[in-house]
């Protein structure tokens, strides 16, 4: 052993139920030396960092919040697989002292898994203020692992926690006590199962633990067991399990009995009745009507900030940074071939630069979301909106991201992270591009004004309603058929409110903004360049470019909607950005820049009103813009889901537009 010279890196995993201050402890341990990525192949954030102390290096992994090791959600499955398979050197169980009993359930599971552990007894101040005195020493004696009382928000107890981690790493653990036992009723059952499972069972989990999980009906353990066993052995086991489906209740109850007993030993005399769970504030915030009004006010506030603070900054950035650097570049490249100037000025800066101007708006949005999340409000918002959302197969949490999509779909897709369950989150991401964003509304306003004069508002409104109906239908179908059978039950903790932790909030905001900048700098940039190339080659005239030829190729389909090839080209360029449609039409119809009057006149001469309505529908439902597609790819971490989103929207948009035009023609309306 080369001890001392090359100290072994000790892996420390932070486990805990949501809302126990896990991120606060993680930030305190790692400071800014942390890395945020995704768990391999999952859409769940993985935070890890380095912590050094006395020359020792600890690699700290923040596991997703989980209530049990039962794999009831993707988050729980990740946490439990990491603990049971990767076997970190030390697990720090972060426990909320003010709701100790419920938190001890996870501790019980961790003890039964048999990992080297330290318990971080957080939020001691909250417990104390409610009259609850938790005796850390008594808890330590009951658990047989070190217990460190802390108030992570003020940094209290962090040093002691590090000392305990170090002590456990060096093997100086507290003397082991008899860990939580399963209920006597389960023991014979476990023995029966043990006898039925071959001794040479090869699965990546501890044997006894896996057998208990099997009795609990854990689907993923069932799968790996089935795969590892010969069919006849599995059949015997399956029969045993089938006869004892109630075992899961027994096991969970025995863990809670242990938790209640341990709680009594650690707390001595009862107390804590005065710990506020936020009932007073929730009299308004979860009220069926008052809660809605409060939520609407909150959303209005976010919008107000985005428009009054963010939009001016966006304008300033665009005028002073994007436009100027594009101009400067054009000057500097005078004499170079035309295509290279165009590539850099239009493709590069025009594409990614424009997206970068979104940063102020996004920063405000992400900051607001991080604060509302940290304070504990999000669960309340989800609660009041659930009544409406579950009718279309979504849950309350999806409302906020969807609603934010009215401004721009990109932050909405990125904001879908607040939706907890994977199926609900993916559904939210997949339908968000159907929210009519501001850029699409610009195009719609132009068309309705050109064709319908006084009735423009009514037509716009009808089209938005049509759009929302399609969204609701898509959400319903996706959640019903694509994610069929996945647990979408709405069981959610309503956490206690607490003052936001500035560090946690700023780190979360910074991380999300960083992700967006990465997105703009890579995928969005690449897509802008591709679209630029398609619209600039072989001719600089978009009508004769590759895009133009694709548009001509689509003319027969356009014919079904009363649209000629020029409209198809304009539609295709909306992939760059939705408002691009107008710029393209100006070029292709030769109406030039300036007022829209000439453009409107020209438009009315090349199509009938029915075709215009059909085009509006097409524009609204068409493939999301490049930035949205990139965001979908980033958030789903899957080209398959990205392709699915593009494909289904493409299909719906053409289908709806064709139906509109053909029905109008059938009845002789607007043709």
């Amino acid at each position, binding site marked *: 052993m080369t001890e001392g010279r090359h100290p072994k890196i000790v892996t420390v995993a932070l486990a805990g139920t949501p809302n126990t201050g896990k991120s606060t402890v993680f930030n305190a341990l790692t400071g800014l030396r942390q890395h945020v990525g995704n768990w391999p192949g999952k859409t769940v954030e993985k935070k890890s960092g380095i912590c050094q102390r006395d020359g020792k290096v600890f690699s700290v992994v923040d596991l997703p919040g989980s209530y049990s090791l039962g794999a009831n959600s993707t988050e729980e499955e990740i946490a439990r697989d990491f603990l049971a398979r990767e076997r970190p050197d030390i697990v720090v169980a972060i426990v909320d002292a003010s709701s100790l009993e419920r938190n001890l359930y996870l501790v019980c599971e961790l003890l039964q898994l048999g990992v080297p552990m330290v318990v971080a007894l957080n939020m001691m101040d909250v417990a104390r203020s409610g009259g609850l005195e938790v005796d850390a020493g008594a808890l330590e004696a009951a658990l047989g692992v070190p217990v460190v009382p802390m108030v992570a928000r003020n940094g209290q107890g962090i040093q002691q926690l590090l000392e305990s981690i170090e002590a456990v790493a060096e093997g100086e653990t507290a003397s082991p006590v008899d860990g939580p036992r399963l209920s006597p009723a389960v023991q014979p059952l476990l023995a029966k199962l043990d006898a039925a499972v071959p001794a040479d069972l090869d699965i990546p989990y501890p044997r006894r633990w896996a057998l208990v999980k099997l009795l609990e009906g854990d689907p993923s353990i069932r799968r790996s067991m089935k795969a590892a066993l010969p069919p006849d052995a599995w059949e015997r086991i399956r029969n045993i399990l089938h006869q004892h489906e109630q075992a899961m209740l027994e096991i969970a109850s025995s863990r809670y009995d242990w938790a209640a007993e341990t709680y009594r030993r650690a707390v001595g005399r009862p107390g804590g009745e005065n710990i506020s769970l936020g009932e007073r504030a929730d009299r308004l915030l979860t009220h069926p009507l008052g809660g809605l009004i409060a939520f609407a006010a909150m959303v209005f506030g976010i919008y107000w900030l985005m428009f009054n603070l963010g939009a001016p900054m966006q304008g300033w950035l665009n005028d002073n940074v994007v436009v100027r650097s594009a101009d400067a570049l054009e000057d500097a490249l005078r004499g170079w071939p035309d295509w290279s100037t165009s590539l850099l000025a239009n493709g590069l800066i025009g594409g990614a630069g424009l997206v970068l101007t979104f940063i102020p708006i996004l920063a405000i949005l992400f900051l607001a979301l991080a604060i509302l999340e940290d304070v504990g409000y999000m669960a309340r918002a989800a609660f009041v909106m659930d009544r409406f959302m579950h009718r279309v197969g979504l849950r309350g949490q999806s409302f906020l991201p969807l609603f934010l999509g009215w401004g721009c779909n990109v932050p909405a897709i990125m904001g879908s992270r607040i939706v907890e369950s994977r199926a609900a989150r993916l559904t939210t991401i997949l339908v968000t591009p159907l929210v009519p964003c501001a850029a699409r509304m610009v195009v719609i306003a132009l068309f309705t004004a050109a064709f319908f004069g006084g009735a423009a508002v009514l037509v716009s409104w009808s089209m938005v309603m049509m759009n929302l109906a399609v969204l609701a239908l898509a959400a319903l179908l996706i959640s019903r058929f694509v994610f069929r059978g996945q647990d979408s*039950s709405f069981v959610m903790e309503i956490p206690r409110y607490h003052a936001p932790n500035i560090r946690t909030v700023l780190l979360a905001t910074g991380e999300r903004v960083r992700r967006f900048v990465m997105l703009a700098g890579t995928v969005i940039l690449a897509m802008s360049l591709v679209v630029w190339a398609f619209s600039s080659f072989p001719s600089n005239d978009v009508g004769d470019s590759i895009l133009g030829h694709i548009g001509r190729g689509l003319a027969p389909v356009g014919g079904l909607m009363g649209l000629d090839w020029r409209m198809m080209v304009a539609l295709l360029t909306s992939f760059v950005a939705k408002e691009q449609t107008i710029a393209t039409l100006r070029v292709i119809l030769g109406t030039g820049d300036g007022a829209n009057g000439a453009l409107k006149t020209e438009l009315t001469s090349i199509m009938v009103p029915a075709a215009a309505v059909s085009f509006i529908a097409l524009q609204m439902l068409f493939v999301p813009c490049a930035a949205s597609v990139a965001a979908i790819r980033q958030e789903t971490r899957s080209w398959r889901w990205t392709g699915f989103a593009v494909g289904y929207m493409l299909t719906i948009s053409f289908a709806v537009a064709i139906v509109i035009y053909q029905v109008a023609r059938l009845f002789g309306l607007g043709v």
Partner: protein
Amino acid sequence: MRTDDRVVPLGTLRPGETGTVAELSGGRAFVARCLSMGCTPGTQVTMERNAGRGPIIVKLRGTRLALGRGESMRLLVRRQDDKP
């Protein structure tokens, strides 16, 4: 007919009423989720918010849980009639 008419779906409790969990039904995933969040047979639950439609909020083991309307009807509780 149920022999014990005090066993009712959780969603029928009025705010302020208390019951103990008697039976969980409605699929393994849902039951497992309830169990992990402290809703085991015999647990005392107090209704806090129930508007007759939409989701509900209950208090149990010193924490609060929100459940969807459908979910609240799949959980049976034994009503405690301490009030006349």
